[in-house]
């Protein structure tokens, strides 16, 4: 067991002054074990949160942060038991009480905001019913202030999370709301019963940057107004740093470091915390260094990033997209797309969900067939469907998918996963073992992984195998569709390193992402996509330093970053 690096606990931050607020949540030596293997999922975790403060709980997936979050509600996931420890919220002791008492305390003493609002709201219930239900036990307990009915309380809390409070809205079903609105309804549900402590389990993961900024604002305003404490669970240091007074870092079921946010960010003690911090991509860089200028393999014609005008006039680009318009049925989702990708260059395609960036990348690889306009690879036109392209064309453009958990056939070993596409595209393979080992080495995986199945790999390792599968066929253009968005920040940094080294070997990349901070770490040029149009296009450093389009400016402003914090 690694020792907890404790820092001198400062009493609050800023305006709370000298007198420290009382401790609201006291969680002592909580241990959760899983059945039937008796593995400790979290071991002897102790936390204290003062009234009105937010504790950021950071860790990668599998570190036990959600299990701890649920334990704070005295809830045990299936096949797990809280085997030891004490949890006190205010004057209420949570563990060891009977189910009925605990249920009454939930929503009143402790409330929970889950990760996915879409699955947290019952799709069959109207918002009115849903919110009133959340108030049920609290209202019956007489906790509502004088003169407030359940109905008025529902409307009040909706106004507070900046949602409409009219009957039309209350009569809606969850699917009629956007993701951000759903999450704000979930926040309203949590706050409606005046809880003392709120557990937020990655409430903004899966939301767009702009929406995330709105939701974070709402959370900040609500906790301030109600004076409640929060435990904010996240894998993203940047988000946590903007919101929390204190930060606790979890690693493999243990608390490795805890301290006031500022001092922890400035001077992390534990090696793991330092690694987490280093992994967060910086927003303001001068764009990714051009690998050719970095002393990488110098190609025949050397060039620099900034003179993009020159290499437009230069010889044929590897991929040329002209006047592309794509549609689903009768709905046009992309229009007037013009984009060039040159050899050895990384072009980022930046946009939020619904901007059409995935449609564009799928059209390029031949998975989305409903489009018009020109698509050229080395001057040769590409057919709309991958089935009508010739073998060489299919080999030269490879695609890596967003979700590594779905992109690999779970019934094939890594070696088969790599070799099958290769055999399909290039015919018989001499010395397959060596090919597999070499591809794995290029993505920094050991050769012995060849005999594993995908479910024996972590998310990051799976994504590396996806990359290995694509580069084994020696493509010229790699299309990366949000390939890091399903991964933890620390894993994301490692994947970006792999991509950089591939680019140094002369591979061109089309990097599709919604993460503006990643763009500046990976790409040389960026195209900003908004509602099916490229609104801004240029070298990364220029676009990020002087964005000309209001949409780009909004994206940059909303991106979380702890450089500002």
């Amino acid at each position, binding site marked *: 067991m690694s020792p907890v690096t404790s820092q001198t606990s400062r009493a609050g931050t800023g305006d709370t002054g000298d007198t420290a607020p009382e401790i609201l949540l006291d969680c002592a030596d909580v241990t959760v074990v899983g059945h039937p293997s008796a593995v400790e999922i979290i071991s002897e975790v102790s936390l204290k949160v003062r009234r009105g403060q937010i504790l950021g709980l950071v860790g990668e997936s599998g570190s036990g942060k959600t299990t701890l979050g649920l334990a704070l509600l005295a809830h045990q996931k299936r096949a797990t038991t809280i085997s030891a420890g004490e949890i006190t919220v205010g004057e209420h002791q949570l563990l060891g009480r009977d189910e009925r008492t605990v249920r009454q305390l939930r929503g009143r003493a402790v409330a929970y905001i889950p990760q996915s609002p879409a699955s947290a709201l019952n799709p069959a219930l109207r918002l009115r019913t849903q919110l009133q239900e959340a108030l049920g036990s609290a209202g019956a307990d007489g906790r509502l202030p004088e003169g407030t009915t359940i109905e008025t309380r529902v409307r009040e809390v909706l106004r507070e999370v900046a949602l409409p409070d009219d009957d039309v809205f209350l009569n809606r079903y969850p699917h009629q709301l956007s993701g951000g609105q759903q999450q704000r309804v979930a926040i309203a549900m949590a706050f409606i019963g005046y809880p003392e402590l709120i557990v937020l389990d990655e409430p903004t993961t899966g939301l767009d940057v702009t929406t995330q900024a709105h939701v974070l604002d709402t959370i900040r305003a609500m906790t301030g107004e109600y004076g409640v404490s929060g435990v904010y669970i996240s894998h993203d240091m940047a988000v946590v740093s903007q919101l929390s007074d204190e930060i606790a870092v979890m690693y493999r079921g243990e608390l490795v470091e805890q301290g006031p946010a500022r001092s922890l960010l400035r001077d992390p003690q534990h090696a793991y915390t330092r690694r987490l911090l280093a992994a967060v991509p910086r927003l303001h860089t001068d764009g990714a260094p051009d690998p050719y200028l970095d002393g990488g393999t110098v190609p025949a014609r050397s060039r620099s990033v900034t003179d993009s005008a020159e290499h437009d006039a230069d010889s044929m680009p590897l991929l040329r997209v002209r006047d592309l318009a794509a549609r689903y049925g009768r709905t046009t989702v992309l229009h007037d797309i013009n984009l060039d990708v040159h050899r050895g260059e990384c072009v980022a395609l930046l946009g939020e969900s619904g901007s059409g960036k995935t449609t564009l990348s799928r059209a390029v690889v031949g998975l989305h067939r409903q489009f018009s306009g020109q698509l050229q690879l080395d001057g040769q036109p590409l057919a709309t469907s991958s089935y009508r392209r010739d073998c060489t064309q299919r080999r030269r453009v*490879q695609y890596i998918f967003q979700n590594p958990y*779905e992109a690999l056939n779970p019934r094939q070993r890594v070696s088969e996963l790599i070799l099958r596409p290769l055999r399909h595209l290039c015919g018989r393979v001499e010395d397959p073992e060596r090919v597999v080992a070499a591809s794995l080495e*290029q993505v920094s995986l*050991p*050769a012995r992984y060849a005999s*594993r199945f995908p479910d024996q790999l972590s998310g990051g390792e799976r994504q590396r195998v996806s990359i290995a599968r694509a*580069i084994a066929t020696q493509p010229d253009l790699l299309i990366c569709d949000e390939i890091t968005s399903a991964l933890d920040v620390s894993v994301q940094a490692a994947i970006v390193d792999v991509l950089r080294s591939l680019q140094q070997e002369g591979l061109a990349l089309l990097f599709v992402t919604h993460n503006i901070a990643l763009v500046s770490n990976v790409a040389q040029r960026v195209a900003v996509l908004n509602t099916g149009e490229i609104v801004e296009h240029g070298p990364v450093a220029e676009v990020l330093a002087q964005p000309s389009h209001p949409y780009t400016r909004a994206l940059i402003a909303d991106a979380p970053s702890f450089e500002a914090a």
Partner: protein
Amino acid sequence: MSVRNVRSVRTNADPSPAAQSADPVETSRPIGLFRTAWGHGRTKVGLGLVATVVAIAVFGPLLSPHTPTEFVGPPNQSQVDGLLFGTDDVGRDVWSRFLNGGLTLLLLSLSAALGGVAVGALLGIVAGYRRGWLDNTIMRTNDVVLAFPQLIAALLVVSIIGPRVWLIVIVVAITHAPRVARVIREATLRVVEQDFIKAAESIGVARWRIMLREILPNITSPLLVELGLRLTYSIGLVAVLGFLGMGMEPPTPDWGMMINENRLAITIQPWAVALPVAAIAVLTIGANLVTDGLSRAAIGIDRGVQE
């Protein structure tokens, strides 16, 4: 250029023998469906029951004291010297007929179930993967076949053409197919949504190869559950057809037909009905328990936290 670079890496990469010899734990398949199912007590019990009945049907003919058609005593006697379970309605040895009468039932229902699941799986995968008009044609045709209750459809066809062994297998299999196809289509839809199918499409792998190599291995769990379920139904159907006289030609011994032949004298000679009924019941219950264990393992009930 990429080509040259990758080559150079390949020649340089010299996988060390240590890295090559992966430890056995890693190479072994992750806990499979069968092994997970074995963990459920019901699977063990079910397999035990099925194995008993199968053993009777397979080895029975070798152990039978008389031939199944030989007359050994007065009819409908429950207590005859030298006979374990007495005689049937025309004076044949019940025990010998019982031991000889299971194999046909077993073979018929097994081949009907296998055939039905194979055809159903093919239809389901094609419908689920290709979608569009093909999906509509297949599934609407299925709906038409589904409109006939299995037994009525089987009776209808068998009474028109006459009781033939191959006909029973085909009719039962065909009535199974649309039921299997619905389940497999749903399972296929879930797999097709995943990106590894798109990955294969993006490099132009042939459609039939995608169905065979990418989809089929990922729907084995529902397929196995479906096979167990259809086997159970087949046993019932074939036995009922035998009971109704649409199965074997007399005097061939057959469990279903035995029940029919001896039902009138059930009060004085219960053994001739009780033995085949018990065997069919045990077989069906056993197959059901195994199926249940498999489906529990497939869905992941009681899985808990591993490792």
